[in-house]
């Protein structure tokens, strides 16, 4: 699903550099990225999403080299192939739960609202235990419920990959595991690959694979990733 090779990405102004020799996320795989704040986990996620592109190396998603695509083509690919879940949910406060879930279909002509989409959205809300709250606005929901709406929004386009940036970072311990389990269960059910950024080691046992993003083992002044768990 995702193939990264010889990646070298820098934020020159901040003196930040991220190097990834090889990283592969297979279809349906559930992968965690762990590491301290500022290590580059979110940057790696943004690279996978095509929000930023590397100066060197390649990031291929579903067979497309993101570096060779235009900004709008990357946006379209993101919309159709990738679901995004953010730490602070990023729901639109003026849309109801139902409207937030269906938001991707209103942002780009690449997606069309069809009866099947409504059916899937209905099904996802049921799965995420939000059926009774479809008419509520985000400010009428708990933090956990908001994140579940965000998960519904990420899955409604039937993507091949979900990228979640610290999806449990703003949740209490009880909601944390519940939301993550729901995300992983839904993703598994819909055969979606998931990459989750977290710095909570206690959650790693839920993933098939985990990579740590941190300082280079060779002592170089850049960030690298290394596998810490999984097959």
């Amino acid at each position, binding site marked *: 699903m995702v193939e990264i090779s010889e990646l070298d990405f820098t934020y020159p102004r901040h003196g930040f550099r991220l190097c990834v020799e090889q990283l592969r996320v297979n279809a349906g795989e559930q992968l965690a990225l762990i590491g301290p704040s500022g290590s580059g986990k979110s940057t790696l996620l943004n690279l996978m999403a095509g929000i930023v592109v590397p100066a060197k190396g390649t990031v291929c998603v579903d067979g497309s080299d993101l570096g060779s695509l235009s900004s709008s083509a990357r*946006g379209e690919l*993101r919309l159709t192939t990738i679901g*995004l879940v953010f730490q602070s949910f*990023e729901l*639109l406060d*003026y849309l109801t739960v139902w409207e937030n879930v269906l938001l991707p279909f209103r942002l780009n002509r*690449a997606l069309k609202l069809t009866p099947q989409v409504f059916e899937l959205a209905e099904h996802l809300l049921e799965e995420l235990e939000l059926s009774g709250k479809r008419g509520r606005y985000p400010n009428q929901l708990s933090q956990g419920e908001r994140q579940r709406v965000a998960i519904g929004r990420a899955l409604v386009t039937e993507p091949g990959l979900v990228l979640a940036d610290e999806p449990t970072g703003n949740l209490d311990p009880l909601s944390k595991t519940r939301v993550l389990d729901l995300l992983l269960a839904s993703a598994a059910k819909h055969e979606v690959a998931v990459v989750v950024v977290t710095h909570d080691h206690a959650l790693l046992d839920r993933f098939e694979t985990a990579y740590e993003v941190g300082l280079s083992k060779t002592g170089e002044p850049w960030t690298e990733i290394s596998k810490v768990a999984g097959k």
Partner: protein
Amino acid sequence: MFDSLYIAWKHLCFHKVKTLILVAAISVTLFLPAGVDALVDECAQQLRQRAAQTPLLIGAKGSETELVLNSLYFESNPPADTSMKALERVQSSGYAEAIPLYVRFRAREKPVVGTTLDYFSFRELRVGAGRQFAMLGECVLGVDAADQLELRPGQSLLSQSENVFDLAGAYPLRMNVVGVLEPSGSPDDSAVFVDVKTAWIIAGLGHGHQDLGEDASSDSLLEKDGQRLTANASVPTYTEITSANVASFHFHGDPVDFPLTGVLAVPEDRRSRALLRGRFQGTDEASQIVEPSAVMEKLLATILRVRTIVLVGALLLSVATTLVVVLVFALSLRIRRQELETMRKIGATRFAVFLIVAWEILVVLGLSGGIAVSLTFLTRQLSGPAIRWFLL
């Protein structure tokens, strides 16, 4: 396109108060110049119309504006009095029909217009209820005056003294309402019409009292010298003219000297008009003859200058409002930066995000424009009665 509009509309609906304030502010800003323009246009049109319907006015020398406003709109301070001599001069010239106007008094704040029945023919005023005045002390009301004073034929109306401190002046006269005019859409609707002689009685130039020749009045009689009788203050003076006492009403003095505030002259043709004007244009002339439309144009020139000032003010207000609206949108975009960024991250194109914001601005401007146009339309529709109500 539709999806962007949908999101924009949801945002505007969710932030109702902000949207309503913006729409109201922009609507008022757009409406103000158009509304003022409509009102001034209507005002000018009505003033011109009435003036154009009045060929010539003769009055005492003095303010032309006061003469015109008093004679046409029954407003402003009464001009200096002219007299019946002016009326007779017009009549004897043979150049025009002359209609007397004596507009000095008020009855419950409505102007009392002393004139003759010719005025009604000239203004094409018809009686809608009751009949025309036929006797001293009778009055006919304009339709608005009747409505506002809640009077109908058979009831009575008391005239006001010109000056409350004028203790030695005329007594108020109880006038009998005998008719109500049909609506005319002119200042006549708000007036109380009486025969000019009735107006002179209100002015104290004529009066009626008990006959001192009768026995019952002998206690009041102080001296009798042939035809000359002198009585004390106990002789009752009538404050209402009835069929029983109308014969006792009489005037003192030479009727040709009786006052008028104006004489409405209706010449037959342009030649008569020019000749009549010539008659009143001597340097030692105590009267003046004016063309109401010319006087009104001078007055309107002032009103139009005021309109320009108001429009400049409205323009400045528009600039200020535009700046505030731009600031509100700019601040709103700053607050929503994260939200718009999220849309971009999810997959919206830059154009789609731009379209959402553009729709919001367009919808607010569209609603405001619609309201402003509706208000302007309403103003144009209602300005006629409003101008008549407030100005005339």
